[in-house]
């Protein structure tokens, strides 16, 4: 770990507002933070960089008192923060703006901004006039204009974010923590947000900015702390980093790990062929092929259109124009049913909300996608056959559980992911679209899921892989397509891929399009 030095140029005062000293945290046997230390000074913008699951979110929860810690100390404006003291943290002036913003959609902008302050002050009477005065002052300080009497549900995401920031400022926040604030924002809105952050920084407000978008990190941050697997791998002024260095600190590797993908059979037919595919405000002019057994990775900054493209190929949000051929035959994928009938499966990004019935058993979850194949005369469901098949798959995929009756919510993340995969494997799909198949899964399970995918690939299943973990992408895929602003901007042979160069290319993506 390199020494932490403040970016003196942008910090008007040297006062330390937040100190994290040797903090550790474990969930069961899983150590998510290991001896983490950092400081934040008045007017400093510090970025916490790292991949998903690297410990950034856990640190935020500990710093804001929402989560206890196993060891170490958090000093907020000189006061040592007791573990689990969320209210105290707010009172001391630390406000976390979560990704979902947690505003009240049914209340006006005025009330949303005034609320935190009012609740903290323990007021009993609704002083609407006084609230308006405070809110107007806050808004003026931010240098923005917004209708105070409109309900928050009518606002755009960018406007809602302003409301969340104003709410923090109105409650005299001195440290604002923003968790991935730019994820849902358009480019212009990101610039506006950064202008605001710069203005407030000069005003003495400190920021902790969680992000994994390299170009944004360099644009807005004075200092950077990089996390990987719960450990601070690098820390220092932003000038001390270059994109390559930062990518390395985040991923821990410069070069691809050992090649996992095996060579494609020379005779492999082209399974999917896409030409000039377009969907309004999502992607445009997309053309590529995937052969049987080939694993094609689709990478790019979040929101570049990968997700929309994958949904279009699964028939969930069909394309407006362009041609899709499957084994040479022109098809229209305008519903999930037609995609399924063509042998296309989708492993969704969010297992929680999209993929699994959490309270139901493993067997039910595996069977859910193909109830029809167990249906007998009069709609009778052959539960025995279903259970037999589920048991077989459970063994094949090494899903670790006592039996198929165990509810899915009791499984680990890796095992849950395997249940989702199992469901589709049972259908013997011709092509699988995988969205972040190993996100939030420990290293050991990652390996097993990789093997599973490679097995499918050997059996001739085509795969479109959407993932952020570039070394993984490089190891697992045959080809890498880079997407930016809704278009394909580059294509690489995975065997000769330079991961650091790819990371830099992706970071530059917005400009290249």
């Amino acid at each position: 770990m390199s020494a932490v030095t403040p970016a003196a140029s942008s910090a008007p005062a040297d006062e330390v507002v937040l100190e994290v000293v040797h903090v550790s945290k474990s969930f069961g046997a899983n150590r998510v933070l290991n001896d983490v230390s950092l400081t934040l000074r008045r007017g400093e913008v510090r970025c916490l960089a790292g991949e998903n699951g690297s410990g950034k979110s856990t640190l935020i929860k500990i710093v804001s008192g929402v989560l206890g810690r196993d060891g170490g100390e958090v000093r907020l404006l000189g006061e040592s923060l007791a573990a689990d003291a969320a209210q105290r943290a707010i009172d001391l002036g630390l406000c976390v703006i979560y990704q979902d913003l947690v505003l009240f959609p049914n209340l006006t902008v005025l009330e949303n901004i005034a609320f935190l302050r009012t609740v903290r002050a323990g007021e009993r009477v609704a002083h609407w006039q006084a609230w308006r005065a405070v809110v107007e002052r806050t808004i003026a300080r931010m240098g923005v204009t917004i209708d105070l009497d409109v309900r928050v549900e009518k606002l755009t995401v960018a406007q809602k974010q302003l409301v969340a920031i104003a709410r923090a400022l109105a409650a005299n926040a001195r440290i604002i923590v923003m968790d991935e604030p730019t994820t849902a924002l358009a480019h212009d809105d990101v610039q506006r947000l950064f202008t605001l952050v710069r203005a407030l920084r000069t005003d003495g407000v400190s920021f902790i900015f969680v992000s994994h978008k390299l170009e944004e990190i360099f644009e807005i941050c004075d200092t950077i702390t990089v996390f990987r697997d719960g450990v601070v791998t690098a820390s220092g002024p932003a000038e001390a980093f270059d994109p390559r260095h930062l990518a390395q600190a985040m991923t821990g590797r410069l070069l691809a790990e050992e090649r996992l993908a095996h060579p494609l059979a020379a005779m492999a037919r082209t399974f999917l062929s896409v030409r000039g595919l377009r969907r309004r405000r999502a992607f445009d002019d997309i053309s590529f092929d995937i052969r049987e057994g080939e694993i094609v990775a689709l990478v790019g900054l979040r929101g570049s259109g990968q997700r929309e493209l994958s949904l279009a190929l699964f028939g969930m949000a069909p394309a407006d124009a362009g041609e899709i051929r499957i084994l040479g035959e022109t098809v229209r994928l305008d519903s999930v049913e037609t995609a399924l009938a063509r042998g296309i499966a989708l492993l969704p990004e969010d297992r929680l909300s999209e993929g699994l019935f959490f309270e139901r058993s493993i067997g039910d979850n595996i069977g859910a996608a193909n109830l029809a194949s167990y249906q007998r005369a009069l709609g009778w469901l052959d539960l025995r056959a279903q259970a037999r098949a589920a048991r077989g798959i459970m063994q094949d995929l090494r899903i670790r559980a006592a039996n198929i009756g165990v509810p899915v919510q009791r499984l680990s993340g890796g095992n849950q992911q395997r249940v989702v995969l199992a469901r589709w494997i049972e259908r013997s799909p011709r092509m699988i679209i995988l969205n972040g198949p190993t996100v939030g899964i420990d290293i050991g399970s990652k390996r097993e899921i990789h093997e599973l995918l490679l097995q499918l690939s050997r059996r001739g299943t085509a795969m479109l892989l959407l993932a952020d973990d570039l070394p993984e992408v490089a190891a697992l895929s045959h080809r890498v397509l880079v997407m930016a602003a809704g278009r394909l901007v580059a294509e690489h042979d995975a065997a000769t891929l330079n991961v650091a160069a790819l990371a830099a290319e992706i970071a530059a993506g917005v400009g290249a399009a």
Partner: protein
Amino acid sequence: MSTLVVPRCLVSRRLLSSTDGVAALTAVALFLALGIANPQILSVANLFDLARNCLVNGVMALGVVLVLIAGGIDVSFTAIAAFAMYGTLKLALGTDMSMLAMLVIGSAIGGALGLVNGVLIAGLELPTFIVTLGTLSLFRGALLTLLGTTYIVNIPPSMVAFGNTLLFQIRATTGVTYSLPASFLILVGAAILMAVLLRATVWGRKVYALGGSELAAQRLGISVVRIKLAVYVLAGTLAGLAGVLHAAEVRTANPFDIVGTELNVIAAVVLGGARVSGGYGTVCGTLLGVALVTVINTSLLLLGVPSYWNKVAVGLLILLGTGLPILVESWQSRRR
């Protein structure tokens, strides 16, 4: 505060896009339409009648709208009202208890039953609809098995006197008299108190906040459990009060009364702009909704429409009153 003097739902700048704005427009339009069809409906005499008919449902509706704003739903309030009414009169039987005492006792019984709902919902975090569906049956069963099933006809003299106290009286040319009972003031008072509570206290705004997003309320450090408890106790109190007012109005305590009207009241509240999903609703809109449902139930008869059509009309109004704002909103967002 001026907002309390002029009902906000009638002067809203965004009449069509707000739910209670649409409800208000619908109500006014319907009043006018009915008035044109039968001018007698808009006569002072009939308006007095309307006010009298709104009384009990109006007080209960004030509790229901509070629960809906907080993001819950209550179907047990009619059982609470009946229990409180019968329980109070059972206590008062043969005594010369004052009307004020009966109102207080009825409210207290209602509040206590509301607390049962509150503990189950806020304390044990059970689903609000299921809980109140259970307590609807529970309270009603307890009333009939424990307290009795016979009518109480000889109500205390103070209650008779209260029922006879009139604010205004009008003798129509036909010789029939129409009057506005003093108990109407209790509805007005309760409505003003509720409006002040919701609009001018931080507690009231927290109720809206809770109904808008429980997660956000928690993250801001609002004590969600305490607010929910208070909401159900308050709703129960209002139901108990309504029960005693009902007895004073009909001059008997019939344990089979009131229960069965819960959907009518909820319908009125929803018509008045409250949303079952929580976070929305106003006192003014609620009173309009109650008036609207009452008008339909009484005025269609005056127009010579068979009474079975009342239910059809109320059903259509609910679909219109809740559907229109949603349509307006989606139409506006499409245009944007």
